[in-house]
Structure formats: C-alpha cells, structure tokens
C-alpha cells in the first residue's frame, strides 16, 4: 500500500517534471559537487547581459508592455532564433555533452496551466518589472527590498504546490 503511494507520487512528479523545464534524464555519471561551478560561469555570463542590456530594469519591462520600445522584443526574439538554430544543430549532428552523454529533449504537454498560470505570471511580471532571473540580479545590485518580492514569489510557488491538485490543469 505504502509502496503504491510512493509510486503514485513518483508518477505525478514525473508528469510535473516533464511539464516543468526541469531536466528529466538523470545522468549516470557522478561528479564531485564542485563540477556545478561550470554552470555558475554560464550564470555569470547571463548576469553580465542582464545588467549591460538593462534587462533587469523595471522601466524597460514597462516600455515593452506599453509598446514604447523594441529593445526587449529584440532581445527575446534574437535569443529564440539563436537558441532554435543551436537546438536544431545539436539534434541534427547528435552532439553530445562534454562528458560524452547524449543530449535529450522532452516534449511539453499542453495543459490549462499554461494559459491561466501564464496570465498570472504576466500580471506579476508587469507589476514587479521582473521575471525570476532578474529578481535575483536586482537584489545583488543593491535593491534589497526586492528580497520581499522573492519571498512572495516563493510563497506563490509553495501555494501552487499545496493546492496543485485542486487547480484546473
């Protein structure tokens, strides 16, 4: 009975994890924890772009939604084109990771959350002027009050997890 319950949790988790942008295919390689710093280097690059291209500015986000500036559309549009070409090339040539493992992709399944949740996030994005990445960057550049926004976002995530089964999907 207990085993079955655990299995069920795993299955629902699998479903959610595939809906999420989380990595599903567990690596069989075991690396020391500090190997994770290679991802920090990519994060550093991302952070530099955030600051240098003013992506973390509340004003830039307002201009985007008020159609007063092309800047953010240009950034996101270019990123999608570059990302799509990269994914296409990785698939076409079967490029592997630096550790020789296959690179895998999961297909996202449609559910109502993408519309309802998407609208909720859109409201929050325009109010706070930040999506989750920029929130961390804003705090780091000295806007400490944004910690309150992050705490609220954690609460929002937690409340979603708590009431997930009652929400339409």
């Amino acid at each position, binding site marked *: 009975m207990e085993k079955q319950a655990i299995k069920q949790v795993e299955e629902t988790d699998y479903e959610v994890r595939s809906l999420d942008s989380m990595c599903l295919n567990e690596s069989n390689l075991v690396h020391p924890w500090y190997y994770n710093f290679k991802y920090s280097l990519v994060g550093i690059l991302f952070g530099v772009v955030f600051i240098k291209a003013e992506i973390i500015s509340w004003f830039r986000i307002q201009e985007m939604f008020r159609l007063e*500036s092309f800047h953010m559309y240009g950034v996101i549009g270019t990123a999608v084109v570059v990302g*799509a070409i*990269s*994914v296409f090339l990785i698939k076409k040539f079967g490029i592997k990771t*630096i550790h020789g493992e296959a690179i895998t992709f999961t297909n996202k399944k*449609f559910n109502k959350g993408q519309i309802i949740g998407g609208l909720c996030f859109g409201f*929050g*994005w325009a109010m706070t002027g930040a999506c989750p990445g920029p929130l961390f960057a804003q705090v780091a550049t000295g806007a400490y009050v944004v910690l309150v926004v992050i705490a609220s*976002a954690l609460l929002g995530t937690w409340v979603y997890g708590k009431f997930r089964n009652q929400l339409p999907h």
Partner: protein
Amino acid sequence: MIETLREPWPWYMAGIIIGLIVPALLILGNKHFGISSNLRHICAACFPSNISFFNYDWKKESWNLFFVGGIIVVGILSTLFLGATDPVIVHPDLAKDLAAYGVTDFSGLVPADLFSWAQLLTLRGFILMGVGGFLVGFGTRYAGGCTSGHAIMGLSNLQWPSLVATIAFMVGGFIMANFILPYILAL
C-alpha cells in the same frame, strides 16, 4: 576599457548571448535552461511540508542554483567595481505617465519611489511587491516555466505549449501594464 564596460549593450548582442546559453547548458551537462524552477527547488529544500510537489531530490537539480549564484555574483561585483548603473533613458511617454503618480526617480533599476522599505507599508507598495511577487511565483509554476524555460528554451525546441504560455505571459503583462497598473499606481 571602463567606458566600453559602462555603455549599455544593444539588443542583438544581448539576444545572441542569451540564445547561446541554451546550447551552453545542454553541452555542459544536458541541462535545460529555466530559472523559475529554482523557486521550486528552494521550496523543496526549505519548506517541503510533506507536499508531494516538493518531495523530490532537489540536490539533483542544484546545478540550477549554482547557475543563479553566478547571476548574483555578477550583480555584487558590478556594483562594487563599476558603481551604480547609469540611469536608464526612459521613454518620454512613460516618464510623463509615471510622474503623474509621483514616480520621478529613474536612476535605479527599480523605481525608488515604488520599491522601498517605506513603500512596502503602503497599499500601493504592498500590492506591487507582495501581490506581484506572489503572482510571479504562483504563475510561473502553474504555467510550468517562465521567460527562460518557456519563451526561450521551449520556443527554441519548437514546443507549441511554450508558445501558448509565452502568448499568455505577454497578454497578461499587456493588460496589467496598460489597464490595471494605472489604478494601482493611483492608490
């Protein structure tokens, strides 16, 4: 040198680098770009509270927290060594509309007239920071991703549910910024 570092970058340069983060994470370890998952990992690590959604091995996803750590390091270093960022040149229409609500300080990344500890105690500040933040956390998890996971990673992999999510983000933001935010700012 410092001058070049200080100047803001054009959109295409930023777009190309952000786009290259997608293959960089894939090639470094088959990782999929998506920042908002970290909010879930932090919940799983700190307040799992016996909720099945938060009972998983978050340590397996800790690479993503290291990734965010990189963003935080840059923010701290740039503030320490390059000083405060130059004020953003705000579109005159936006500046005029904001001035009508008493928002006149455009020097920071977030408007100091709206995002401050003192403002947090006002209804307007509480709605913007508290309710706004809640909607970011709730909405991204409900939608299964944010701008990075859906709009960039999902669209790069040609996933139509991600296109639906991206359109919903933009529609939500458009409605808020143009039709609802003016009433909140007037509070």
